[in-house]
């Protein structure tokens, strides 16, 4: 039977493109023949803006890149600045930012899973259950730094302010409750035959392809590669912490979902260990000035952000502002294989696959 190909522009305004993302997709009936991602609708020129701001002011820009994971963005940037200017952070500050980063990972993965299931067509129910948990994390962030999304909590050398007294009981309460909530989510989703049927063996990504395409983060681990920078390149104090790294066996959408879900559990354990190890002290060394002026040089410190390897490549010319600030954005690079992954599958799989990659348009376009 001869058929006519249909080319459709999906996005930039579409319910499940997670922001302003556009795909030019060619269908043969329901089957995808070609898909081309078109991005740039949220481009704000963060890298250029960073060249005109002092090192501390750039922290506020990093909040707005991956806006579901501001704390880890802060962390990646601050680590790079510290390496560049040779600042030794104070101990409590590092523990605090590790706690913040792991909480942020839970929040970001909650959003990722929630919207993935939403793309599968569940009428917002799992999403709202997960957002309910994320809300508690955001409240914890509000206690720590007064903001929920755009935190700007970290400073070169640590964090700007110790967490308040009421933070710790709330955090403990959250850590107690969260595993039960996760069990709920697993009951609702993990064994659900519809979800299994929709996600298993769809958009399978092989190990070698994933590495070759610089895919990182949960997506790489779902393909079975044991590469977690917290384990292989322990920045901050991750070497004092023991945690397991969930890996997928097949590398399809279901594995990407499972890996994220289990990483939430591991993050909870990491936060608990941090709580055991944190000790009173200054959160920021006194000698670090408000206006950091690193020597000439360059630095790149990759960290394990919720979306993948996130690193800030900073070049300094000795001034108060970075000479060049490049963001290695995991969302953008993970998108490379979108076309290869979806070809041959159905329309509905396109959105599920896109959701399982877990991109954040703020970070893709910067």
């Amino acid at each position: 039977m001869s058929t006519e190909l249909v080319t459709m522009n999906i996005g930039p305004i579409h319910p499940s493109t997670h922001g302003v993302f556009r795909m030019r997709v060619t269908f043969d009936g329901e089957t995808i023949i070609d898909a081309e991602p078109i991005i740039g609708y949220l481009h704000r020129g963060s890298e250029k803006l960073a060249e005109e701001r002092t090192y501390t002011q750039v922290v506020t820009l990093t909040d707005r890149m991956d806006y579901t994971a501001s704390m880890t963005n802060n962390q990646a940037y601050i680590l790079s600045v510290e390496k560049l200017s040779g600042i030794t952070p104070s101990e409590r500050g590092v523990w605090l930012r590790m706690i913040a980063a792991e909480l942020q990972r839970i929040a970001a993965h909650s959003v990722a899973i929630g919207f993935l299931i939403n793309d599968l067509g569940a009428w917002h129910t799992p999403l709202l259950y997960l957002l309910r948990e994320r809300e508690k994390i955001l409240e914890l962030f509000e206690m720590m730094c007064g903001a929920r999304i755009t935190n700007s909590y970290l400073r070169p050398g640590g964090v700007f302010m110790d967490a308040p007294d009421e933070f710790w009981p709330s955090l403990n309460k959250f850590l107690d409750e969260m595993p039960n909530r996760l069990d709920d989510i697993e009951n609702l989703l993990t064994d659900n035959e519809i979800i299994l049927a929709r996600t298993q063996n769809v958009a399978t990504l092989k190990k070698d392809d994933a590495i070759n395409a610089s895919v990182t983060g949960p997506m790489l681990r779902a393909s079975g590669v044991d590469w977690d920078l917290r384990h292989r390149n322990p920045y901050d104090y991750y070497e004092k912490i023991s945690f397991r790294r969930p890996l997928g066996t097949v590398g399809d959408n279901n594995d990407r979902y499972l890996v994220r879900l289990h990483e939430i559990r591991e993050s909870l354990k990491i936060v608990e260990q941090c709580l055991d190890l944190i000790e009173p002290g200054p959160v920021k060394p006194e000698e670090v000035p408000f206006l950091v002026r690193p020597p000439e040089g360059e630095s790149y410190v990759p960290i394990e952000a919720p979306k993948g390897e996130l690193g800030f490549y900073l070049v300094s010319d000795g001034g108060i502002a970075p000479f060049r600030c490049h963001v290695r954005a995991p969302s953008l690079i993970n998108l490379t294989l979108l076309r290869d992954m979806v070809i041959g599958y159905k329309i509905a799989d396109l959105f599920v696959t896109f959701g399982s990659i877990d991109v954040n348009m703020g970070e893709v376009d910067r």
Partner: protein
Amino acid sequence: MGPVRESFIFEFLYCHLSLEASCSSVRVLNIAFIPENLSWISFILTAFFWIFVFINAALVGVLALIWGERRLIGKFQARLGPNRWGPLGLFTPVADAIKVMFKEDIEPTLSDKLIYVLAPILMVVPVFMIFPVIPYGAKTFLTNISVGVVFVLAITSINSLSVLMAGWASGNRFAIIGGIRAVAMLLSYEIPMGISAAGVVIVAGSLSLSEVVNNQVIPNAIFQPLGFITFLVASTAELNRSPFDITEAESELVAGYMTDYSSMKFGLFYLGEFMATIASSAIIVTFYFSGWRGPTFIPSEIWFLAKWIGVIAIFIWFRATFPRLRIDQIMSLAWKGLFELSLINILVLALMIAIWPDPSGMQLLLMTLINWVVFFLSIYIFGKILSPNLTGNKIKKRSVIYGLD
């Protein structure tokens, strides 16, 4: 006056208008004034009165369902649902209706104007035709046509035409994909639905909806669970409700076949869908929950209403819980799953009815037991053997492995 005179509520009103001789026994108040030779006038007056009542009841029902669905889904999702307009947000659907009416009516340039306008009308009108034939109570029904089961199945399938028309006429690619999906899905699910309904007819021994209710000693949902499940799933698909809402598929096709509709045309689609939900629930209550039957200390109409709301709540519960299936999986489910299950159901029922044509109480219980055994067996076999093919890929519960240190 034909079959409509069987209806108590019709005749009651008619006899209070007409001076027809046969009416005198029905009349309670002696207020009739239309002479016998002009009885067609009283017939028309009565008919218009009931049309008015039924249409308005259906519309009010839709408003109630919109409110109830949003409110209940809100509770399922641990939030409140609409709460700003009126107590408990009761007036929200009214505000919605006003908003929809006053929106700009946009017609896309590429649309096929006539079909574009006709499609929403075709969505709504057939659904109204279901309400008169449903027995709402022991005496409360408007008409009892002898082929009621066939009639409701026929009427409910008209909306696939409307969806196709809407998708085609919009001249929008999202809409046409939605329309084509709808036709494929709705036509497929007609078949398991019809065969399951045949199970009901075999038990009742009649195609009349009143007889179906009268002969349901044990509610069919308990008596023939397999038929009930297949019918429930098939009618969920017929209604385009989650998990079969691929025709609208918000996360894929924006709004499917009604992407380009706005204003009251969109409102009619909305109305038609919700009314179809109400009508289908009424059919399910009639077929599988023994309609208005129940202990007599409560009026039969109340029984019917309670069961009705319960079935609608099941649909809402499904919507709050399940993700959507993919188009090929939906087609497989219809042809490789429900079709066979409904055939097994009808086969077993037919055999049993052939053995016990007029079952006594104990025999009925035995038949129920056999039906449940068949139900579990066939679901088990279906899950084991058919489900790998059903979904297009072999599904197996999986867990993660952990990286070695």
